[in-house]
């Protein structure tokens, strides 16, 4: 029965070709936007989790928390100190802890000079590995700085490739403030724009060149002993630092975070942003649904006489409702199929454009079968819901009046 009813309904849809297409386009636009935004949002969350996942969940980061919103290294925050580092090192469960310094720095190559960040790394291998892992740093060309590299630096990917008119090369010299240093290595893109845009230098020369206080740190990174629960260690570190500074919970001038916590909060933010954006896109779906309703109401008016005939030849209310609902479902489903295809195309286009523009693979589209099927089912559902009132209107026609309708 459904096949035959569908056949009659499809015939009616095709008959009003232009009007049907215009109605379908209304659904297509909404559906494409929703599918593209959901898949990009999902992809972004996956990419971010993967990025943080590569750092490892066994590292804890301690940063100053100031009254303002300044970036790390700015003066609005209370710096961490060597005493803090000593305390962190003594916390039960901490394997290794190192301090890092961040500072704005002027970099000059030939004519051009710019301000970016210098990031310190420790000289000994184990500590250096901890910093590199925690920041997802990997060498692209050349080598990492190590013991004795007083006048050598490594540059982030963006600094090397994009900031100067000619890309920086390994073994060339650049000027940091007033000191000439040699580039010995270039990093791969890390996905963190701050690191990609920074100069990596050993801690000692950095303090010298940039006149940074001996005792201050901007970040402390702690490696947790294997088999210890990160959140326990995190809480112990926070307690020890509170004791040292003599502050209560909630008054801390520092923040202790583990990657999992960061991922969770970042994911929450992304989820909310995604929900809002998809919600806005869904409004256009609503408008598309109203378009279907409008088309179906017009169809009921135009075909009043036809409805009268169908009733005269034995069509019951429910049979006529079925015919009209199938018609609106076809409009919705057609819009859903085309919209899903277009949405997938849009999200892939955005991924390609995003990679071309930023050079990072952070923007990904996560396209799953349930998403695609769900979108198509939802579009048909919108078609059916929008058709309910017009179909009831059609079925309620009095056959005598409908047959007389001009």
């Amino acid at each position, binding site marked *: 029965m459904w096949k035959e*009813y569908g056949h009659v309904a499809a015939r*009616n849809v095709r008959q009003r070709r232009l009007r049907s297409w215009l109605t379908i386009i209304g659904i297509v636009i909404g559906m494409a936007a929703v599918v593209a935004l959901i898949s990009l949002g999902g992809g972004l969350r996956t990419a971010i989790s993967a990025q943080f996942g590569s750092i490892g969940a066994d590292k804890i980061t301690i940063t100053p928390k100031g009254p303002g919103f300044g970036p790390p290294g700015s003066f609005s925050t209370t710096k961490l100190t060597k005493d803090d580092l000593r305390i962190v090192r003594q916390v039960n469960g901490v394997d290794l802890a190192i301090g890092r310094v961040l500072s704005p720095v002027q970099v000059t190559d030939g004519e051009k000079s710019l301000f970016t960040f210098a990031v310190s790394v420790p000289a000994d291998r184990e500590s250096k590995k901890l910093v590199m892992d925690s920041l997802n740093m990997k060498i692209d060309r050349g080598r990492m700085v190590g013991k004795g590299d007083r006048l050598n630096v490594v540059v982030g990917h963006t600094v090397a490739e994009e900031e100067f008119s000619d890309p920086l090369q390994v073994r060339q010299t650049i000027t940091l403030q007033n000191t000439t240093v040699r580039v010995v290595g270039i990093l791969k893109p890390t996905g963190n724009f701050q690191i990609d845009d920074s100069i990596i230098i050993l801690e000692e020369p950095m303090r010298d060149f940039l006149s940074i206080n001996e005792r201050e740190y901007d970040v402390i990174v702690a490696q947790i002993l294997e088999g210890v629960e990160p959140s326990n260690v995190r809480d112990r570190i926070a307690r020890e630092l509170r004791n040292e500074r003599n502050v209560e919970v909630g008054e801390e001038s520092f923040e202790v975070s583990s990657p999992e916590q960061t991922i969770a909060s970042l994911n929450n933010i992304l989820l909310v942003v995604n929900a809002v954006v998809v919600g806005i896109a869904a409004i256009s779906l609503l408008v598309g649904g109203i378009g279907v309703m409008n088309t179906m109401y017009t169809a009921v008016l135009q075909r009043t006489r036809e409805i009268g*005939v169908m009733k*005269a*030849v*034995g*069509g019951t209310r429910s049979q006529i409702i079925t015919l009209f609902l199938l018609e609106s479902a076809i409009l919705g489903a057609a819009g859903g199929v085309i919209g899903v295809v277009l949405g997938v195309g849009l999200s892939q286009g955005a991924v390609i454009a995003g990679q071309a523009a930023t050079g990072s693979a952070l923007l990904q589209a996560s396209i799953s079968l349930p998403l695609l099927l769900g979108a198509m089912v939802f579009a048909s559902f919108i078609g059916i819901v929008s058709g309910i009132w017009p179909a009831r209107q059609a079925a309620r026609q009095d056959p005598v009046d409908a*047959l007389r309708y001009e």
Partner: protein
Amino acid sequence: MTDTSTLIRLEDVEKIYQMGDVTASALAGASLSIYPKEFVAIMGPSGSGKSTLMNMVGCLDTPTGGKIFLEQQDISKLGESRLAQLRGQKIGFVFQQFNLIGTLTALENVALPMLFQSVSQHERRRRAAELLELVDLSERLHHRPSELSGGQQQRVALARALANDPEVILADEPTGNLDSKTEEAIMALFQKLNKDGTTIIIVTHEKTVARHAQRIIHIQDGVIVGA
């Protein structure tokens, strides 16, 4: 009037339309009997109530008073869905305006009443083709109404009326939109169907049409004045 052999029996049927404070009586106690295999013409001037009478007989409308029996079943109090089923199974309509569905082919138009009776697709197509052959349109199965002449459209409508093998065919001015030559051909077809055993009721105001009937029922001012 209580005879059990009637196909359709009307007893004091009234139809009063209420329009605001004004009431208009379209039927004022009409009684009549129609027997199986009859060919009846209902005649009357416009406004006499013959369209209302036809709607009552055709289960399209329900009376405000009196009773209507279709094969001894009182249909005057039935609900809309039951009436639709009765129409589909027992009554075939032919209209002055043909009333074919423009988006469907001749074959699909003829098959439509069977769709509502859940006849299988194969059987629908077979029977529709057979009926179109009966009305001499086997060459036009896949034509749309707009590609057919008036006479051809009315023959498709006749084939559609026969689709569910009804007890009675109700025709409302079936030749009103046709020229006299085509009128003759359509009336000859009605006669042939009647000869084959189909009960036919034609509502008309044309004597040339009515003369094909075995019996003429006259209606005036909502009452039967001669049968």
